């Protein structure tokens, strides 16, 4: 075999496996280890002498060492050998034959030459063989030609000459000569043939050539296949140096690659890995596949699927690796995308199931809530029945005892309702279904009511205090029910855990936005206001301030009409930051403090959690659901505020919440109050108004019975009235406190009597003694205030409310006096005073009952004239009846036109105007009335309609007092839909306020109080 290889080595000619077309390319896809000369390997022949032996050595080595290569070669060589030994054998045989013949012929020649020599010797002297031959030449020349056709091997020479004669020998020699020549010729021919054969042999394909052809085909095939395949094929030796590489994406010259390792060629992510992988394959000796991510500066981020197989030597040692890499970046990306998608789908599915679960839970919760709602409804329904019926019962004639019982019933019923509402509320807040209903309310009243309500159920010797700072607006907008709920909750909590001392509410505004701009607005008042603020604890000063204000106002505004009064009223409101036409946010900070048992530090975090109380002990001792604070917190947060607590054990706790509230624009002021008002009788209202002025309330410990002391004359039919009655009672109770009453029934009765006495006396005072102690001019009232206040403060520490009571009645007296003396002026003054007071409503509130009483008492021509413009019979009936109960008589007309006619006929103090009416609606009528008030004549449209009435009415109205006739008559709209929009419409059309239908006692009363000066 060795021989074969040498032969191959010689044949290095190998036309290189690589197709010619790629040879010229600068960057070859095929890079073979053929240092230097490999460029020539395309030209078969020249390469022959090339030193490329060296580089082929590697291939040799490879084929030598690697079993695969050697076996392939062996097979090829054997095949070739077999064919050629055959040929050689045949040729040799022929050669043998030929040489035998030749020897024979030469032997014969020698014999003949022997004979000739003899002959020559004989005839040496006489004849020259040449000459003879010359002659004979012709003969000979002919003979061979003839003989040529004769068989060459004719050994028997025919000689026709006589044997042993000279002729005979000559002939014989010639014949032999010819034979010899023939033989030589044949020999030549054979030789030629041999040469030809040899030549043939030479030209015949050598094993190398055949091999190379096979290889070339394989190469072409491979090339054909690999031309566009995104693969890299390579072979690396034991040290992982590239010996061969085919790269579809050539970026490097082969000298950059061959003989180097991956790590030397590339850098970046993945290179180390592939190196390790190859090494691993080398070590393990078994092929493996792996996907490797590269991120190299050379070709960027790509993923290759690498297949590496080890190459063994015949001895079984690994001598290198073949490796094949395919760019699968796209596939990987796609796969990853798929994976991601699948993952997303999975996530989606998970979410879906989660959602389903949530939905399920929600449904469950809803069902539970539904059940809760149904349950509470089930409880509520009969309860409402009880309460409702109790209220209805309250409308019937009852004696005092019955009424007291009824009130207990009502308040208990309310309590139970409240409890149920609590539970409902919590679930509502939690489910986010709680909606806040913004209404206008008066923080002072809320605080007062809460305290009153708390005092109503108070069974301990506790002092309940309330303090509302002056900077708290009179009215704010918020969900009063919820705020109240929070306060009530906190207060009842405080009371529950407080055994002695006091419980109270502090309410003040905190500036989250700079209030300075508003204050600058009316600097005149600012100073006074601030002084008021500074002295806000000192209620007497506040009072005097207000009184000063009021006196000031009344003096400077005597000649102005109602309209400007209102303006001034506005200015006054400004002290409460109330002036803005747009809504403004005020942050109210409310502190509910107590001197109770306090909350241990460790219980604070769980305090606001549901069903949690400071400790199980507490729960046992104090009861309760543990829902209260949770509700409070959630409600406060729902309203955009926060609730915090500070506490010291055994000293008390303070719950503080801060709430943003809108401040209503002035125009809509005091239109509708959801607040219950204390309106039952003069004392009560007087007290409440004073409370509002002061912003301080104190409820001393009192006893249950007193709660139910009520003035028989009071109209107390609905729940609302009931609670307002309670309010009144607490205050009146406080009043009697100064007389140090301390115990139930008898006390209450006593106090009742005293109340009644005082009420009666008040009324009497109003009626009979117009020149009472407070009958002086308004200017003097200041002194009165101070005096009374001081005196009262002296004897009963901070019960300002009661002081105010007295004071207010004096105001009323004075106003009454004024009215009696000079009707118009008195009206003005009182209305102004009403405006002076911090609350728009408070004083009128106190005044109207007086008026009522007066009406019922006097019921003569001096009562007010009220016009009701309403087309709906039912509404007319109801309103009429209500007015009658309120002690007013009203004229009724059915549409706007009739209203104008009625106005032309006579004067009215107040008009209730339906908005939607046939012929002329309320808006139009109001516009016309207003334009009349301004211009002094009726609009053409009306004038045309009733010429005669107009003139007469004109004379009528203008006659007595022009100024008065042009006074702005309060017109109150009665709207079926009390939406803000229609309210704005009403106001825009010149109406003063509006009552939403259906008209209720309360609305009516409020309006009357506000717009009917007394």
């Amino acid at each position: 075999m060795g021989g074969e290889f040498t032969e191959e080595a010689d044949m290095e000619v190998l036309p290189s496996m690589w197709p010619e077309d790629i040879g010229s390319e600068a960057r070859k896809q095929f890079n073979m280890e053929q240092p230097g000369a490999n460029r020539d390997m395309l030209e078969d022949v020249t390469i022959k002498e090339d030193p490329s032996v060296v580089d082929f050595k590697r291939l040799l080595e490879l084929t030598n060492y690697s079993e695969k290569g050697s076996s392939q070669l062996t097979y090829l060589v054997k095949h070739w050998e077999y064919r050629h030994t055959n040929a050689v054998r045949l040729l040799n045989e022929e050669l043998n034959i030929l040489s035998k013949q030749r020897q024979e012929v030469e032997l014969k020649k020698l014999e003949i030459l022997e004979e000739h020599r003899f002959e020559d010797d004989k005839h040496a002297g006489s004849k020259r063989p040449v000459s003879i031959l010359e002659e004979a030449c012709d003969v000979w020349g002919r003979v061979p030609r003839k003989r040529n056709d004769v068989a060459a091997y004719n050994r028997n020479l025919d000689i026709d000459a006589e044997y042993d004669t000279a002729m005979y020998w000559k002939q014989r020699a010639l014949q032999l000569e010819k034979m010899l020549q023939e033989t030589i010729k044949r020999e030549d021919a054979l030789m030629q043939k041999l040469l030809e054969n040899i030549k043939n042999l030479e030209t015949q394909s050598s094993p190398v050539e055949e091999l190379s052809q096979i290889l070339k085909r394989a190469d072409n095939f491979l090339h054909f296949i690999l031309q566009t395949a995104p693969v890299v094929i390579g072979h690396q030796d034991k040290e992982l140096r590239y010996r061969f590489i085919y790269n579809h994406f050539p970026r490097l010259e082969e000298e950059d690659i061959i003989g180097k390792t991956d790590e030397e060629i590339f850098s970046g992510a993945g290179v180390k890995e592939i190196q390790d992988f190859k090494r691993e394959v080398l070590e393990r000796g078994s092929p493996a596949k792996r996907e490797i991510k590269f991120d190299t500066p050379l070709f960027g981020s790509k993923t290759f699927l690498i297949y590496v197989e080890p190459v063994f030597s015949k001895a079984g040692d690994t001598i290198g690796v073949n490796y094949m890499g395919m760019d699968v970046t796209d596939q990987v990306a796609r796969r990853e995308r798929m994976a991601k998608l699948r993952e997303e789908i999975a996530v989606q599915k998970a979410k879906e199931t989660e959602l389903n679960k949530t939905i399920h839970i929600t449904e469950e919760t809803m069902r539970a809530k539904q059940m809760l709602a149904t349950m509470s409804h089930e409880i509520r329904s009969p309860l409402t029945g009880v309460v409702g019926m109790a209220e209805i019962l309250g409308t019937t004639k009852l004696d005092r005892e019955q009424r007291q019982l009824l009130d207990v019933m009502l308040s208990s019923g309310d309590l139970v309702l409240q409890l149920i509402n609590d539970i409902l509320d919590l679930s509502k807040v939690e489910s986010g279904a709680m909606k806040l209903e913004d209404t206008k309310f008066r923080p002072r009243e809320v605080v007062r009511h809460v305290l009153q309500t708390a005092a109503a159920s108070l069974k301990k010797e506790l002092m309940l205090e309330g303090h509302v700072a002056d900077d708290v607006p009179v009215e704010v907008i918020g969900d009063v029910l919820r705020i109240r709920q929070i306060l009530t909750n906190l207060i009842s909590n405080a009371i529950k855990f407080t055994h002695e001392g006091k419980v109270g509410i502090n309410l003040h505004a905190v500036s989250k936005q700079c209030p300075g701009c508003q204050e600058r607005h009316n600097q005149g008042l600012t100073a006074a206001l601030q002084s008021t603020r500074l002295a806000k604890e000192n209620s007497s000063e506040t009072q005097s301030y207000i009184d000063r204000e009021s006196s000031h106002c009344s003096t400077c505004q005597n000649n102005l009409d109602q309209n400007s009064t209102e303006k001034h009223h506005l200015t006054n409101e400004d002290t409460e930051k109330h002036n803005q036409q747009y809504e403004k946010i005020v942050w109210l900070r409310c502190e509910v403090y107590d001197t109770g048992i306090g909350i241990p530090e460790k219980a604070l975090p769980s305090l606001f959690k549901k069903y949690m109380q400071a400790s199980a002990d507490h729960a046992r001792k104090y009861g309760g659901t543990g829902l209260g604070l949770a509700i409070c917190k959630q409600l406060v947060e729902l309203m955009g505020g926060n609730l915090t607590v500070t506490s010291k054990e055994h000293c008390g706790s303070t719950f503080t919440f801060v709430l943003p509230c809108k401040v209503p624009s002035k125009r809509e002021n005091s239109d509708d109050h959801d607040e219950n008002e204390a309106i039952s009788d003069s004392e009560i209202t007087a007290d409440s108004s004073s409370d509002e002025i002061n912003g301080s309330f104190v409820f001393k410990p009192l006893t249950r019975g007193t709660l139910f002391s009520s003035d028989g004359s009071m109209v107390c039919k609905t729940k609302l009235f009931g609670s307002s009655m309670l309010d009144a009672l607490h205050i009146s109770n406080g009043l009697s406190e100064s007389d140090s009453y301390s115990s139930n029934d008898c006390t209450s009765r006593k106090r009742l009597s005293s109340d009644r006495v005082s009420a009666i006396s008040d009324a009497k005072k109003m009626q009979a003694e117009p020149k009472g102690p407070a009958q002086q001019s308004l200017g003097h009232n200041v002194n009165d205030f101070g005096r009374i206040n001081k005196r009262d403060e002296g004897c009963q520490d901070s019960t300002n409310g009661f002081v105010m009571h007295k004071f207010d009645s004096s105001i009323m007296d004075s106003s009454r006096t004024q009215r009696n003396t000079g009707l118009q002026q008195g009206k003005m003054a009182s209305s102004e005073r009403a405006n002076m007071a911090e609350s728009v409503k408070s004083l009128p509130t106190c005044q109207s009952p007086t008026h009522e009483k007066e009406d019922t008492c006097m019921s003569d021509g001096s009562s007010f004239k009220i016009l009701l413009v309403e087309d709906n019979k039912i509404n007319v009936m109801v309103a009429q009846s209500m007015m009658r109960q309120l002690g007013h008589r009203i004229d009724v007309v059915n549409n706007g036109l009739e209203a104008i006619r009625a106005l032309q006929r006579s004067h009215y103090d107040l008009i209730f105007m339906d908005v939607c009416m046939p012929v002329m609606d309320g808006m139009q009528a109001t516009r016309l009335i207003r334009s009349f008030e301004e211009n002094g004549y009726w609009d053409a449209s009306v004038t045309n309609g009733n010429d005669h009435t107009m003139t007469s009415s004109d004379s009528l109205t203008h006659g007595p007092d022009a100024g008065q006739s042009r006074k702005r008559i309060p017109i109150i709209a009665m709207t079926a839909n009390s939406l803000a929009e229609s309210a704005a419409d009403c106001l825009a059309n010149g109406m003063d306020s509006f009552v939403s239908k259906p008209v209720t006692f309360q609305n009516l009363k409020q309006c009357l109080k506000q717009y009917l000066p007394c």
Partner: protein
Amino acid sequence: MLGLGAARLEADMNRLMALLFHQGVLDEQFMQLQQLQDESSPNFVSEVISIYFRESEKLLKNLRSLLADRECTDYTKIGIHLNQLMGSSSSIGAKRVRTVCLAFRAASEHSNWSGCLRSLEVLEHEYCYLKTKLHELFQMEQHRVMAAGARYHPALS
């Protein structure tokens, strides 16, 4: 307190009222109405209610006739009628009637004939219900007064 029959009747009445309240047929306004009834006008509520019924029946009839023809329906007129009905219903506290009226009015504002018709049907139903129930109530009231008369009458006179 009261005679036995009267007590029972009153209980029945209250139950009925409670029912009406809970069903939302009536609201507080009805109580206001009741408050208006006193010695000076002992039959105030029933008077008002009967006027209400009289008026409402007229209105309902008108509404029915207004809605008779789909093509020439005067929606403004319907609106006026409804306002009337709404006004009086809210005055007596007929809450559900009022609510239906609201829906009716919304339908009429959209000139939605079929909606109007549907509303009218509901309205009539509600109205009938209210009427029967209130009749029932007044009947009981009458009986009660009669039963209680024995006790109250001398007191009153």
